[in-house]
């Protein structure tokens, strides 16, 4: 279907079902119950899941296929966000032009940076991209945000003010990013007994965009171009000796993944019309590397899983505080309760980084192929048992 093999079609359908049913899947616990703390099915987090999924899928096209480890991808995400917010400020709150411009600007920006950085490979390439990203961060954070020439609004972040021109904005349209009048914040909440599920316009826009670019990524992975990129990863020197110039291929991969990052940045601004400089910091670039490695480098679904995993920890674990802990361990006798809270305390709230770090170490040590490898092992184990069962079944016949 759609020029995909049977296996890829199944994968695409599974991803489509998962993203479209996410409001149900992510809210498994009834609202008001003690476990509701772990529900992730609210619009902001669901949007983040798919947006960072897009970002990681794009990053994987560069890192997973060519092996070039870029440490500066957050710069493209930031540039995308800034261009989108400028469209909101100057022209219209309609998200389509904003997203389109963010992809184009990020593409041009990555062409520039890629052209310079790709003259080197390996660690030198990583350092060059890191340097460019930090330069962009410094520019956005302070140089381009002085009171006289304010392109980025520095620490506060670029946002839309009531006195901005917005030439194509009319009073009939919502005062928030919208798609032809349909506000990105519009949420329909469905109550079923104790459960409640939120269906958010912005989330579904992001989900549809993600399915499109996920399909595109599958096509790239399976194309001759993708094969060429894999060849670059396995032995670039040999490719050069056979008289083939690999740079156009790597540059194309770099620009494509930069455009994915720009798209993610544009969507982020479309969901919440503010662009902050910290989006471009090296920690943000490192985060997408973590997402890709955690999920499974070079696999299609891995980066999306990794993005979901990290964002879940950042938003859910960081919000558990001591009061919540006391609620959980309230059934224990007083002294024991305090001991349990004392033990768990460093791993929750602001300590979520610690929990994530431990899990990351476990994954890298025991599942070098990331969460995807974990899934494959699990599947193999189940299949193995079933095969064993059938073998056992045949035995008595002898």
């Amino acid at each position, binding site marked *: 279907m759609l020029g995909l093999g049977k296996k890829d079609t199944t994968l695409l359908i599974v991803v489509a079902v998962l993203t479209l049913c996410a409001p149900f899947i992510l809210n498994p616990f009834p609202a008001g119950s003690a476990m509701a703390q772990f*529900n992730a099915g*609210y*619009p*902001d*987090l669901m949007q*983040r899941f798919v947006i960072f999924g897009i970002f990681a899928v794009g990053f994987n096209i560069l890192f997973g296929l060519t092996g070039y480890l870029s440490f500066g991808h957050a710069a493209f995400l930031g540039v995308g966000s800034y261009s989108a917010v400028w469209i909101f400020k100057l022209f219209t709150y309609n998200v389509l032009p904003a997203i389109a411009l963010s992809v184009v600007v990020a593409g041009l920006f990555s062409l520039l940076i890629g052209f310079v950085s790709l003259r080197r490979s390996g660690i030198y390439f990583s350092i060059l991209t890191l340097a460019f990203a930090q330069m962009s961060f410094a520019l956005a*954070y*302070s140089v381009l945000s*002085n*009171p006289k020439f304010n392109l980025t609004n*520095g*620490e*506060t*972040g670029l*946002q839309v*003010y*009531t*006195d901005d021109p917005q030439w194509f904005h009319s009073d009939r349209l919502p*005062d*928030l990013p919208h798609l032809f009048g349909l506000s990105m*914040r519009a*949420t329909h*909440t*469905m*109550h*079923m*007994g104790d459960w409640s599920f*939120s269906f958010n316009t912005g989330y579904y826009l992001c989900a549809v965009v993600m399915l499109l670019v996920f399909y595109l990524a599958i096509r790239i992975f399976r194309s001759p171009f993708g094969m060429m990129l894999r060849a670059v990863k396995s032995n670039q020197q040999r490719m050069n000796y056979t008289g083939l110039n690999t740079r156009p291929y790597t540059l194309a991969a770099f620009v494509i993944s930069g455009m994915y990052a720009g798209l993610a940045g544009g969507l982020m601004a479309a969901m*919440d019309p*503010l662009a*902050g400089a*910290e*989006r471009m910091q090296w920690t943000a670039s490192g985060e997408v590397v973590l997402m890709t490695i955690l999920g499974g480098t070079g696999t299609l679904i891995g980066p999306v899983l990794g993005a979901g995993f990290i964002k879940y920890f950042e*938003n859910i674990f*960081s*919000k558990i*505080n001591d*009061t919540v802990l006391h609620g959980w361990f309230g059934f224990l006798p007083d002294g024991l309760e305090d001991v349990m809270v004392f033990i768990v305390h460093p791993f929750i*709230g*602001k300590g979520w980084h610690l929990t994530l770090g431990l899990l990351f170490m476990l994954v890298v040590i025991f599942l070098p192929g990331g969460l995807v490898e974990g899934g494959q092992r699990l599947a193999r184990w189940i299949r193995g048992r079933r095969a064993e069962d059938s073998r056992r079944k045949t035995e008595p016949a002898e």
Partner: protein
Amino acid sequence: MTKTTVTRRGVLRTGAAAGAGLALPTIFTASSASAYMNEPTGATVTLGFNVPQSGPYADEGADELRAYQLAVEHLNGEGDGGMLNTFSSKALQGNGILDKKVQFVTGDTQTKSDAARASAKSMIEKDGAIMITGGSSSGVAVAVQGLCQEAGVIFMAGLTHSNDTTGKDKKANGFRHFFNAYMSGAALAPVLAAQYGKDRKAYHLTADYTWGWTQEESIKAATEALGWETVNTVKTPLAATDFSSYIAPVLNSGADVLILNHYGGNMVNSLTNAVQFGLRDKMVNGKRFEIVVPLYSRLMAKGAGENVKGILGSTNWHWSLQDEASKTFVKSFGTKYGFPPSQAAHTCYCQTLLYADAVQRAGSFNPCAVEEALTGGDSSLPGISSEANKGFLFDGLGNGQTLYRGADHQCFKDVLVVRGKENPTSEFDLLEVVQVTPAAQVWYEPDHPMFAGGSLGECNPGA
């Protein structure tokens, strides 16, 4: 190849199941048309405390959280009641807000606008918070205030000192109890002129974001009006931890006063660097070199230790104040935590009480009704003749008579000029009050050039 058999009975059964499935949502969908965003319907109401738990302002954030927990206790009628006993409005009874028990959720702003907005959004969307409060950076306050305006909940700013929060970035759903950079400049400049003379040359190091810019602008304007000269102004990144490279050029600039427009961890580091470079022992232009920190807090004084002795600055509130309300607050905070509260804790506690009181008086959690109750009054501060001197006047929260001004949602009250104590008697007794500047001296009109641009807009109830 699997074989599919279709039977009449099977088709009927599937059809019935599908029909029931389609009908399900309409059966269970309650009519959720509420009058405003996150209208509390149960026996509880949820407030969102969004404070920095990591980053340069983490100390302030931790103290803010303590104050919020104390305020919630007092609102729910636990503990000794704190400043509910001294507050001039007696609407609150210690049985929650409008008979609903107060609950809270917490989040980490990381002192980054993006993270702060994400955290606030999850409080609004997931936890159903009706009001968001907290924060220790103006950048974050402006970003979260914008979000609350769009989402239709109330934002009660925590520690934010930039002119922009109630200036060009003001919003109808946002309110600030804390004082601002302009007030610091207006209160501090006369004291500086009296202590250090009128012919001084000042060098500014400024945190590079909205607060730093407006703080520098305000103190520069106020000191220049008294005859000082500004030699240079240098912006430093908020995330910087070592300021040596910024301090070295000060030595050769010919300046004889260094003004540190820094706060929190930034100020602790820059002041320590400046003292290490021997700035305070130098004589320049025949005068002793001085350092000024426009915005001071006890937590910063504690962090900088010995180095703060004799250094002048301004503060919103200090625990050593001897009025009844301050003493009550210090007592109940000290009983619970074992040390006195900081100015950040004080302003956050006041904001929570002020919000609860406004809801109680309005009889509704609707943001528009709350705005009307909080700033829509007709009372005014005595001794100031101005069209804009109108809003909600209250007393008994530690700053004397205070006006929540309707025109820009900014509180007007006395400002304290403080100095690092030479001979502290305890580890908390670090600042001494030099002067209490009356509100009339720090008053400004809402259209003052430093606050111009932007408008409150309409209150947004979100539904």
